[in-house]
């Protein structure tokens, strides 16, 4: 059976060039980067080279601004807990209404510790309300966390405007750029970002590696205490094969970003248009232009997302949904309800995220098969108007 992978937001394959670059760090270059001897020095050199590449991708002023972690979730925990956790007088965190669950659940944890969590709303496309944010920041604010681009609907936030507001208010700005990095240019200095979360697997690097960018002069509290690696911010011997992989992935992403984006957009737009044209009562979620190059997010009236995913899986197409039934919590996507969709509308959504291996024939395969799937499910649904034929 033909298979079409359209869940690159879920996980990505490791680029073969990245994998080749990781290979020596398993059995050849295995020293501990903290050791003084030649084996350690060789490992430390590789570690610092990877750090430079990641810093380069983010336009970070110094490579030492990069702290390697076990992934985006750890980086975000480090950022928020590291800042809010050491704040003795400021007891308020501000986030947007469509943050990733790794941000919202850290905030929930702080709420239990007596913090106030202010949630700034978004419009129908998912853009944060900048006026509301401006009004929300106060002397009580310990941290603002707003994502670079949304992981579900792909909306790219006005990050620079957010950075200007937080800079004016003198409040640290954490930005979860997991979905954005490698796909669109991210410039931490220009965007006035104080801390930025990224993950390796979202740019075709290995899983289990991520990083937190921290601007100079920012003081934080570590999550892990131990041997004082990563300038004391993240103890534990570094995962050198993974970090080397992330370094190569970052280098390739920087070099190939434009080419990759052009390829993804050349598939994304016909995919979106093809579905909207061929399926009645289908709608695009997110903004038509200001969206990640690889993201197509569509909702269909009268049907439920998990049954769409199951039906697509039967014909070899891997996709995702914001439906409650596809989540572990059985809640509809908070992002989709935040942009104004009813629970019912949110349930009927389909998320397809493209990658470098996709080609026009994949788009065609989906367009050839999806309308019949939607029609079949609607025929079963008591909510759908009866078809006249």
């Amino acid at each position, binding site marked *: 059976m033909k298979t079409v992978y359209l869940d690159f937001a879920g996980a990505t394959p490791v680029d073969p060039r990245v994998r080749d670059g990781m290979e020596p760090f398993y059995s050849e270059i295995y020293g501990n980067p903290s050791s003084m001897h030649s084996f350690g020095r060789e490992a430390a050199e590789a570690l610092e080279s990877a750090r430079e590449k990641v810093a380069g991708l983010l336009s970070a002023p110094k490579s030492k601004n990069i702290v390697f972690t076990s992934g985006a979730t750890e980086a975000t925990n480090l950022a928020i807990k590291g800042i809010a956790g050491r704040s003795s007088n400021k007891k308020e965190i501000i986030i947007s209404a469509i943050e990733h669950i790794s941000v919202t659940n850290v905030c929930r944890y702080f709420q239990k510790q007596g913090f106030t969590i202010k949630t700034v709303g978004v419009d129908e496309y998912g853009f944060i309300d900048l006026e509301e944010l401006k009004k929300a920041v106060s002397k009580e604010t310990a941290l603002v966390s707003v994502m670079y681009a949304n992981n579900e609907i792909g909306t790219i936030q006005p990050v620079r405007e957010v950075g200007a507001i937080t800079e004016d208010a003198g409040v640290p700005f954490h930005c979860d750029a997991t979905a954005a990095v490698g796909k669109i240019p991210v410039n931490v200095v220009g965007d006035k970002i104080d801390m930025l979360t990224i993950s390796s697997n979202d740019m075709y690097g290995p899983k289990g590696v991520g990083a937190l960018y921290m601007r100079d002069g920012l003081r934080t509290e570590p999550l892990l205490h131990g041997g004082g690696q990563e300038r004391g911010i993240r103890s534990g011997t570094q995962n050198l094969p993974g970090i080397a992989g992330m370094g190569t992935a970052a280098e390739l992403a920087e070099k190939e970003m434009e080419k990759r984006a052009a390829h993804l957009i050349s598939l994304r737009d016909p995919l979106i248009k093809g579905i909207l044209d061929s399926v009645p009562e289908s709608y695009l979620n997110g903004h038509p232009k200001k969206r990640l190059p690889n993201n197509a997010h569509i909702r269909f009236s009268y049907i*439920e997302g998990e049954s769409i995913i199951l039906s697509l899986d039967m014909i070899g197409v891997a996709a995702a949904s914001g*439906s*409650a039934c596809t989540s572990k919590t*059985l809640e509809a996507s908070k992002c989709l309800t935040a942009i104004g969709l009813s*629970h019912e509308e949110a349930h009927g959504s389909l998320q397809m995220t493209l990658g470098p291996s996709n080609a026009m024939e994949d788009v065609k395969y989906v367009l050839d098969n999806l309308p019949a799937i939607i029609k079949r499910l609607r025929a079963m649904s*008591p909510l759908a108007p009866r078809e006249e034929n």
Partner: protein
Amino acid sequence: MAGKGPYSEKVMDHFQNPRNMGEMPDADGTGRVGNPTCGDLMEVYIKVNEGKLEDVKFKTFGCGAAIATSSMVTEMAKGLTLEEALKITKQDVADELGGLPPIKMHCSNLASDALHAAIKDYMEKKGGK
């Protein structure tokens, strides 16, 4: 190719080839349970003849489990007396399908409730005559 998904083969079979799907314009009783807000809504329609369920059909908005349990309950109920059909439980439906993921047992396993609601609807209509 891939390993087992969350659903049994039987669930996937009923999802892919639902039995007795469709409306019944001349139904003797209709049961509607669930709520589109929660992501599951089922309608079961019955035709009764001499105290037995002569025909049972359904329409469902929902996930794979919701569709499969609806399909299964129509198969199980057909030919039974009303009393027998009222004894079908959620567990019976799940068992017949070779089990359901625990998370789906309550939210998406409403088919027996819909069947019972259809029978009650029939009895109320009959009692009212």
